[in-house]
Each structure stands twice: as structure tokens, then as C-alpha cells.
């Protein structure tokens, strides 16, 4: 054992043989599951509980949101492609895919901002009714997560470009990727629960 300290091995030496950062990332994502779990629970609990309009069916444009969903899915694909490139040590291509991922992410967030403003003009604000309250807070939380992800992607690109990443660049890419995909699966659930499942206007 004595010599493990002598040559600082690039591979962490851990009890499980697994890198600590990755364990921590998964634990963090597990925690995030409960965060979004509680938010989605709130949304579902208040489905159809609004006492005034506008109601979801009057506001949602499923086609528009589907496009957003495709964009976010595509960004997950570009993310893994960047990981593949990193594993092949093709770092230029890795950065290219990372930039693509970030751009797709920005498109998604931009789309969300546009969606929010147009809903607002149609009369749905944060305080209009329970639907507005729960809708904006849930999707807003998700949007903030996407934004944080974009920041991480861009810093990754910058650091890789400036040569500030460790030699094994695939590892940080994989970590940011895990976060990014998580944000994507949250959207998969939100898209279904919030947008696709039709919600009747309450009688009266």
C-alpha cells in the first residue's frame, strides 16, 4: 500500500474501485429525482383544480412543444456523440458536439422563453390561477436546470480549448453528460404529464 502515495496514479484508488465523482453525480441525480418528483406531484395534484381560466387546453400548442422536445432529445444525442469522440481522443470533434449540444439547449430555453411570453399575453400569468402557478414553477425549474447545463457545457468547451482539462477529457464530459441526460429525462416526464395527457376544462 505504501507506494500508492508515491506515484500519484491518474486513476483514483478507491474502496469500491469506482471514481468518487461519478458516485457523487449519481447520488446527486437521485436527490434531484425527489426534487422533480415533488414538483410534478404538486402539478398533478392541482390538475383541474383551478377556479378560473385560462385552462391548459386553451393555451397549449402541442405541436410547438413537440418541436422543443425533439430539440432536447437531439441534444442528448449530440451529447453522447461528444463522449464517443472524447473516448477516441478526438478532442476537436468532442468540442464541436459539445457546442452543438449547448446550441440545442439554448434553442430549447429560447423556445421556453417564447412560450412563456406568449402564454402570458394570452392571459396566463404566475398568479392567474393554480394552473399558471404550478405550470410556470415546474417548467421554470426545469428551464433553470437546462440553463445550468448550458453553462457547464460551455465551460467544458472553453476549458478543453484552453487545455485546462485533465488528460482524460472523456471523464468530465461523461459527468456533464449524465446531468444533461437527466435534465432530458425530466423533460420526457414533464412533456407527458403536463402537455400530452389531455386535461378537460372543469365543468362550471
Amino acid at each position: 500500500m505504501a507506494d500508492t502515495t508515491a506515484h500519484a496514479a491518474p486513476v483514483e484508488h478507491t474502496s469500491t474501485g469506482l471514481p468518487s465523482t461519478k458516485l457523487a453525480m449519481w447520488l446527486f441525480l437521485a436527490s434531484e429525482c425527489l426534487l422533480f418528483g415533488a414538483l410534478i406531484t404538486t402539478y398533478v395534484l392541482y390538475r383541474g383544480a383551478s377556479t378560473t381560466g385560462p385552462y391548459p387546453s386553451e393555451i397549449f400548442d402541442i405541436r410547438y412543444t413537440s418541436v422543443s422536445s425533439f430539440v432536447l432529445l437531439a441534444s442528448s444525442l449530440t451529447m453522447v456523440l461528444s463522449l464517443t469522440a472524447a473516448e477516441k481522443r478526438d478532442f476537436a470533434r468532442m468540442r464541436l458536439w459539445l457546442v452543438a449540444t449547448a446550441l440545442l439547449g439554448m434553442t430549447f430555453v429560447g423556445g421556453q422563453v417564447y412560450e412563456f411570453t406568449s402564454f402570458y399575453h394570452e392571459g396566463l400569468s404566475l398568479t392567474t390561477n393554480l394552473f399558471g402557478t404550478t405550470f410556470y414553477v415546474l417548467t421554470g425549474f426545469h428551464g433553470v436546470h437546462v440553463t445550468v447545463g448550458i453553462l457547464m457545457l460551455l465551460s467544458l468547451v472553453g476549458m478543453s480549448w484552453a487545455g485546462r482539462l485533465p488528460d482524460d477529457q472523456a471523464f468530465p464530459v461523461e459527468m456533464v453528460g449524465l446531468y444533461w441526460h437527466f435534465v432530458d429525462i425530466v423533460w420526457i416526464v414533464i412533456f407527458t404529464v403536463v402537455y400530452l395527457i389531455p386535461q378537460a376544462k372543469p365543468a362550471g
Partner: protein
Amino acid sequence: MATAASVPAPRGIIRRPTATTGWLSWFTTIDHKKIGLLYGFSAFAFFIIGGLEALLIRAQLAKPDNTLLNADQYNQIFTMHGLTMIFLFVMPMSAAFFNYMIPLMIGARDVAFPRLNAFSYWVFLLGGLFLYSSWFLGGAPNGGWFGYPPNSTTDPTIGMTFYALGLIITGLASSAGAINLAVTVVNMRAPGMTLFRMPVFVWMGLVVQFLLVFALPIITVALFEMLFDRRWGTHFFDPTAGGRPLLWQNLFWLFAHPEVYILILPAFGIISEILPVFSRKPLFGYQFVVFSGIAIGFIGFGVWAHHMFAVGLGPVANTAFGITTAIIAVPTGIKIFNWMGTMYGGDIHFDTPMLMAVGAVAMFVIGGLSGVTHAVVPSDYQQTDTYYVVAHFHYVLFGGAVFGLFGGVFYWWPKIFARQLDERWGKVQFWIMLIGFNLTFGPMHILGLGGMIRREYTYPASLGLTFWNQVSTVGAYLIALSTLVFVVNAVKTQRTAKGLANEDPWDARTLEWTTSCPPPVYNFEEIPVVHSIDEFWHRKYAEDKEGRLIRVPAGASDHAAADGHGGAIHLPTPSFWPLIAAVGLPTIAYGVLYSWWLVGAGALVTVIGFMGWAMEPPVAE
């Protein structure tokens, strides 16, 4: 770090700090031991403040129709008392011990993520200060520590907004700390330190971190919803728009019941370390203690609704939760039997740590018994919101957790400071505290059954409650006296010369005592190799043919014989970035209250902090 002498010019914007001594080093330290100390000092300071608030409460209640405090002030004080004691004292005090001791006990050089560790501490401290700044900015939270809406969401003063923001911030600190410590235990153990050779304290630490990881996000969501309701007029808990205040109660207790075990399990861990050492016997039924700890963790999530019997969930739900509440008594009972088994037939030494530990067990049992009566649903209808409940949870939290934590303070003081707290003063403190504690909270059972309502700022003389209230107030001041005794003891001890005649004063059993007192920055010159539970004990003692213990001559089986590796150990370098990233968070919170510009500035500071952090290599070469 001697090796960092010839650093090449750093590339960062800010020069990388390298000093590990001096006042500035406390702001940049990422050494788990220093961070542990910071947690400890801050938590103790908050304990004093929360205690002073308790004294004010008791002073107000010392006589009927008292006017020392008005209803408004009283509400703020008992709310801040509860919040302080739970979020700013017991939790960080446990974090202090976990931080300091877990790496030492599992044979590691630091936690898994030293800078994240510093970040957690600063976020906690700044979150606590943020919460306290409310006193000067329009009034402290006043809705009780569980802040039930709609009162909490419609209250016109600013206090409950501080509550939501402050708890979000400290919750973030705990989450980051919990992930860090959980990964440390899972991944940083010395060779041979299998999970089932870990000290029970480490086990309890692991369970607590998992509870935190899964419980905190739930309360975070609830707090955000409250924040939005209060600050931006949303309708989450607004019944007039169809919102349901009961949602808050569900989410809150879904968090707060595990929280109760988050508060008590660290103390259980400490007790499980102290009892074997001072009974000269291995812990009786190690596996049972561990498994019951895990079971408590799991079941803890299932009992939240018992807090809401009185709100009418319907008979089926009530029965189900009544049963789970009673079930949780089982693993707790197992632990208590194991502790008694440990002491039984042992060669017991009643030093102060042992007194504290035994006191904690005894007080916890009393609290547990009054708790079981809660599981009986009909009786709960009468006790909810009376002083009976106040008595119950103080027996559990003060009796169990605070006595246990003090036990840890006395037990590990020599390890941490290389000085021993005075035993006589320690015993004086213990007895005053025990008597004061029982005088304070024992009578509250009677008061509760006599109909005294909690959270009422005063009571009429006609109720006939005056006598027991006065007893209770006298008890509270005795507790304060005992704390004063502790402070005097600590200060006097620290004035004496550093150094212990015996670096293993208690004849202890676990790895943290194999290093010097205080441990060097790198903890272990050479990472120990572990062969059994109570590794250190087995290095010191062997059994002869008749099964008697004989002392192994020092050094004979000591794997840690120094051979000068200390100089070659690469330790993470101190860093400013965790502090900078942490400063951004309360800035954002003030921004939420006052100005979007401040939100932007805070977010910018945090982002810059994290960027700098990411760009900086963990070890400056």
C-alpha cells in the same frame, strides 16, 4: 504543506492560497479537520443563541399573564429557537463530528471532495446568518418551525420569507455535505475496512447522509412553493384559489420525520462509540445496532403522517400510520437493549463521556415512552399542541441528541485539542444539566395534561399552572448554568499547555486514536490496513489461552510505524473559490427580497466561484 514551497506562478486571477496556518487559512481551508472545527464552533455559537431565546421563553412563562414579551415577539422567539436548535445547532454539530471523525475512523486522508466540504460549511454559516439578519430587517420568522400555511403564507411581516429562503440555503449546504460524506464512506475506506468493520458512528453517519440526500429535496420544493406564494402571489397553499395547505403539511412531514432521525442518529453513533470504550467490552450485537439504524432510517420515511392525525386523514390512513409509528419503536428498542448488553458485566468507568452517554440513553428512553403514547391515535388528539408534545420532543432531542453530542465533545476533545477537559468540572456540568433538564421538561408533561397550550405567549392564573411553570423556568436557568460551566471548563483547559501524557487517554478502540493528537494534516503517515472491527483495540490487546486480555507490547503489531512518508503526501491545496461561490447564495436570497439586480449579482458571483473552482486543479503543483 512543506512540499508546496516551490510553486510555479499560478495562472488564476486570484493567487492560490497555500498557507495552512494563520487566520486567513481558516477562510481557505479545505482540511476536513479544520472544517469540522469551524462547524463545531459555529454550531456551538448558535446553541448559545438558541439557548438564550429559550431562556427568554421561560422567563416570559415564569408567571401568569406576564408582559415581558408580547405575543408577536414571543412567536418570533419560539420559532427562531426551534429553527436555530434544529438547523443551526444539532445538524451542523453532527456535521462537525462527521467531518472531523469519519475520515479518521475509516483511515482516509480527507473527505472525497475537500473543496465541496468547505463550500457546504460556508453556505451553512451564511445561511444561518441570513436567517438571523431577519431580526434587523423587519422581523424574524414567526410561524413556528413547521410554518403551516395559510398562516405562514399570508402573514404580512417579512419573517416567513426569510424562513423559506434561509432554510433553502442551509438545506443546500446539508445536501452538498451529505453527498460528500456518503461518497467518502462508500469510497474512501482504508484497505480492509469493509462496511461491517466500520465503527457504528460511521454507519450512523452513512444512514444520516442518505436520509438527508432523499429528504432535503422534498422540503426544498415545499419551501420554494411557500416562497413563491409569499413573494410572487402564487396559489400553492391558497385555499381561496383551490390550493391546499395540507400539501405543505405532507411535504413538510415527509421531510421532517426523517429529519428527527437525522437529528438523533449521530448521537446514537456517538453513544455506540462511548459505551464500549468505557465498559471495556466490544459493542454487544454490532450487526443489530447497525441494522436497526438502517431500519430506523427506512421506517422514518413511513411515519410522517402521524404528525397529522388531528387533521383528519380518514380512519384507514390513521390506522396505517399508527402502526408504522409503533413499529419504529422496535429498532429503537433493539438499540437500547444492545447498549445495556454492552454495559452488562463490563468494567465500567464513569468518566464524563460515559455519564453523558448513559444520561442520553436514559433521557431518550423517557422521551421514547411518551412518544409511544402518541402512536395511540385517540390520545394524540388531546396532546397535539399541548406542552405534552413540547416535553416529548425535548426529551428526545435535548435528552438524546444534546447529551449525546456533549458526550462526543468530552470523548474526542483530547483527540482534537491535545488537552483533556477537566473531569471534575465535566461531572459538575453533567449533574447540573441532568437535574436542570428534568426540572425544565418533566413538569411540561403535567402542564400539557393540565391543558397548557404550546405557542401561547401567556396563560391565565386561573388555570393553576403557575407552580409547574415556575419549576420549569428554574430548570431552564440551571441548564444555562451547566452550559456556562462547560464554557469555563473549555476556556480553562485551552489555557493549559498543549500535549497529552497519554495520546490514548480512554484506551479506545477505533482508528482515529492511532494517529497523534491532534492528527497531522495528512491524518495517517501510512494508510492503515484494517483486519477487524475495533482495529485499534486488537492492535493493543490479544487474548491469552484462558481468554484474558493481555497487552501487546507497543509497536509489535503496529502497522503504522513511521517511515517518513509524510513529506511525499499530496494533499489538496487550500482555495478561495468555495467561499466565493458560497457568498453568492445569500446575495441571491437578499435579491429575492429587495432587488433583481442583487439576484443577478449573486448569481454572477456564484457562477464565477464555480468556474474558478473548476479551473483550479485540486492540488497546486
